[in-house]
């Protein structure tokens, strides 16, 4: 009898605790690199009466997979941070509902890639190779993209797994654009033999394996704005006049990336979600994005911070048509996995196509 009473009490307490969640909370699923000024968020919460809760779901690809897997019982109201390389996966999985924000007209028209208005562009940037200047002080830098696979630069590069990371995928696509459908696998096979290191996501690569963070890899796949960010966050006194890292703009090694926000189907807070999207595209939030997430705002008239003069735009970024990405992305990732992670030869993988 004691047991029954005990169980009843336990059940009661648990139900009470689980039910005590706040009703007007808006949940936003983001990638791990998401960041906005706390004051700005607090201001939005005060004005709108909506409480924001940010749910970090891993790197962009992993985060999107979580949203797709929880389709029908969405884990959030809004998803932010999937990019143009993943856009078609998000659209095909049919997890987003259309919303035509009035702010869209103020955004750069070339970013509006989704004609169904389910994904709204928030920011853009360039995935690019970065290097540690101190390491390369008296050593030559690679000059061509293919040099990365030459013995001179063995065991210097860390990249992200394109299956789970959006900069990783962007870099893979850059290699497809640069070396072609057939050549990209050979390039990666050579990279593997040359000791490239593959990690799960951007923050792991940049903050753990890059030499700037105490790792052993002076070359990393990151963003064209990362050197500017290094300077911005530098704690050295006096502040150095130049960033400790720099972009390595090898021809066609950078990739144009646009990040999107979308409202997840099945949300119970549609109005609040729409207000949040409007706010994310509004000028105050857009002007906060550059120094928080180190990408360019999608809004035309948003001003860039001064430190962005250190953020160079790559001269010839690689480009692939969105349809081409949508059509072949999964196969490229699969083949990449077979060559780089599973250690098969490029030839054998091509033979099984």
């Amino acid at each position, binding site marked *: 009898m004691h047991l029954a009473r005990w*169980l009843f009490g336990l059940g009661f307490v648990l139900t009470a605790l689980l039910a005590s969640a706040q009703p007007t909370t808006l949940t936003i699923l983001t990638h791990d690199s998401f960041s906005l000024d706390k004051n700005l968020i607090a201001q939005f919460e005060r004005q709108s009466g909506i409480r924001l809760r940010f*749910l970090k779901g891993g790197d962009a690809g992993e985060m999107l997979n*979580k949203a797709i897997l929880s389709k*029908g*019982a969405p884990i959030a109201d809004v998803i932010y941070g999937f990019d143009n390389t993943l856009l078609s996966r998000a659209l095909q999985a049919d997890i987003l509902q259309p919303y035509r924000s009035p702010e869209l007209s103020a955004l750069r028209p070339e970013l509006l890639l989704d004609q169904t208005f389910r994904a709204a562009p928030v920011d853009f940037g360039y995935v690019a190779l970065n290097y540690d200047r101190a390491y390369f002080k008296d050593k030559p830098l690679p000059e061509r993209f293919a040099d990365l696979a030459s013995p001179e630069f063995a065991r210097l590069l860390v990249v992200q797994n394109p299956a789970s990371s959006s900069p990783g995928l962007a870099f893979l696509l850059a290699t497809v654009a640069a070396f072609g459908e057939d050549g990209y696998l050979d390039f990666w096979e050579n990279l593997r033999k040359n000791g490239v290191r593959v990690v799960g996501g951007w*923050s*792991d690569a940049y903050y*753990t394996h890059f030499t700037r*963070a105490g790792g052993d890899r002076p070359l990393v796949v990151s963003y064209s704005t990362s050197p500017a960010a290094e300077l911005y966050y530098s704690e050295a006194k006096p502040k150095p006049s130049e960033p400790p890292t720099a972009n390595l703009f090898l021809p066609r090694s950078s990739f144009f990336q646009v990040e999107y926000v979308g409202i997840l189907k099945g949300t119970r807070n549609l109005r609040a979600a729409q207000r949040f999207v409007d706010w994310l595209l509004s000028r105050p939030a857009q002007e906060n994005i550059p120094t928080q997430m180190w990408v360019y705002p999608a809004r035309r008239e948003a001003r860039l911070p001064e430190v962005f003069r250190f953020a160079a735009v790559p001269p010839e970024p690689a480009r692939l048509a969105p349809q081409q990405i949508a059509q072949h992305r999964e196969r490229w990732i699969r083949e990449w996995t*077979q060559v780089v992670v599973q250690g098969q030869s490029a030839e054998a993988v091509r033979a099984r196509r």
Partner: protein
Amino acid sequence: MQTPRTSRPLLNLPGWLGLPVLLFLALALFYPLGRILVLGFTEGLPVALTNPYYGLRLAWSLAYGLGSSLLCVGLALPLAYAFRYRFPGRDFLLGFSTVPFVLPTLVVAMGFLSLVGPKGVLGLNLYGTAWVLFWASLLYNLGLVLRPLVALLPALQTPLAAARTLGASPLRAYWRVGVPLLLPALLSGGSLVFLYSFTSFGVPLLLGGPRWATLEVETYYALAQRLAFPEATALVLMQLAVTLVVLTGYLRLQERLALGIGGYGSPLPLAPRQAVGLALLVWGFFLVLYSPLWNLLWRAFERPAAWLSVWNSPDFTPGSLALFNTLGFAGLALLLVLPLGVLYAYAVWRGYRLLDGLGLLPLMVSPVAIGLGYLLAYPGWRGSLLILIAAYALLSYPLLGRALLPALRAMPKGVVEAARVLGAGPWRRFVRVEWPLVQKAAFSGMALALAAIMGEFGATLTLQRPEWATLSLAIYERLGRPGALPFYEAVVLAVVLMGLSMALLALLERGFRQRGEF
């Protein structure tokens, strides 16, 4: 004369008792596994079989399972002979040897990382090597082989002595009598270790890196990173085929083993000097074997700031939420585990043979496969808490059931009969007579089930929503992140989780003597 066997009606009393369990198994195990079989055979296997890489993964998983079981058996045998003697701390060590088995995988993995990982204190980085995986397997499973052996050895004395009396030389006696008697125990222990290592997930995921991924880890990668359902199911199929073969063998051996051997003989006396020598040797071995765990405790106090920051860290799941989730989910799952476990034990006790074997199945299927099966079978329920709770209940109710069963079987029949004769109805009998008699075993079984739920990692990771992070997931999230603080926060959470499991085990040990079959 042969009497025709009257087949009993399917729904007699044990049938009714077992029905809810069967229903639950059908929904929570067979249907999802069926979906895996269908997708695996139609789409997955052609893809997986043409990819030589998966053959390599299977080969490594087999090698890991086989190597682990050989290692455990090879070390357990001489240790068991040492444990025949009385030496200081003998009982404690023997009791402790099965404790790691119920420690959450993430705790054990954290222990290794803190000792021999990239940030380890030894300055020796074994991360990504096979050595660390075999060590971990030994730490986990040694007790599983050791304890039955220690119980068995005294029973060998009489037959061995008989063989000697009949004129056999010591060697011959051992070879012809001792070894055959030991063999079933060694094989059954070995196959149990094989099953656990072959399907292991958390340790290879965290310590092995991509190079030493088991099939279970590879399944998770295929699913979480690429959403490649067919490939993932094919991997599950490969694993299932091996598991079923070994499991069948194991159950056969168990039946043979159940005969005849019972209880621990009292240890043999030893001269004080020899006892001390033996103690030093055995203690030294266990101290080294368990050093990752001691080290984890030590490192948790290296950076006191982590004990404060972990509860409210802005970048990760706060420890408070993870603790709340862990306890809450375990509590909710218990609401299912309790009726399922009790009904299962009662139905089997009353003679429902079919359920006996079926009910054990959840202990042997892989949690990642369960998670994958749910995602396939109940797409509409993806991301609902019910699915996770059902998985927890499925994976842990057999622990309660198996703990309860020996207690039920040991119940004096006369007492129950007397209650019936004196006019007590079934419910009243249960509450006033039977329950008090098996209460202790039930509590220890519940503790075991709860410990398993709180440390569960594979199914949680597959079925998770970010806001449901349990302690295991909160640890996983902090690993591989920049800086020292996340690492120390992970250590703190691992120690908290270890503390919770140990507290439950203390509860478990209270009823230890009534626990029989594992």
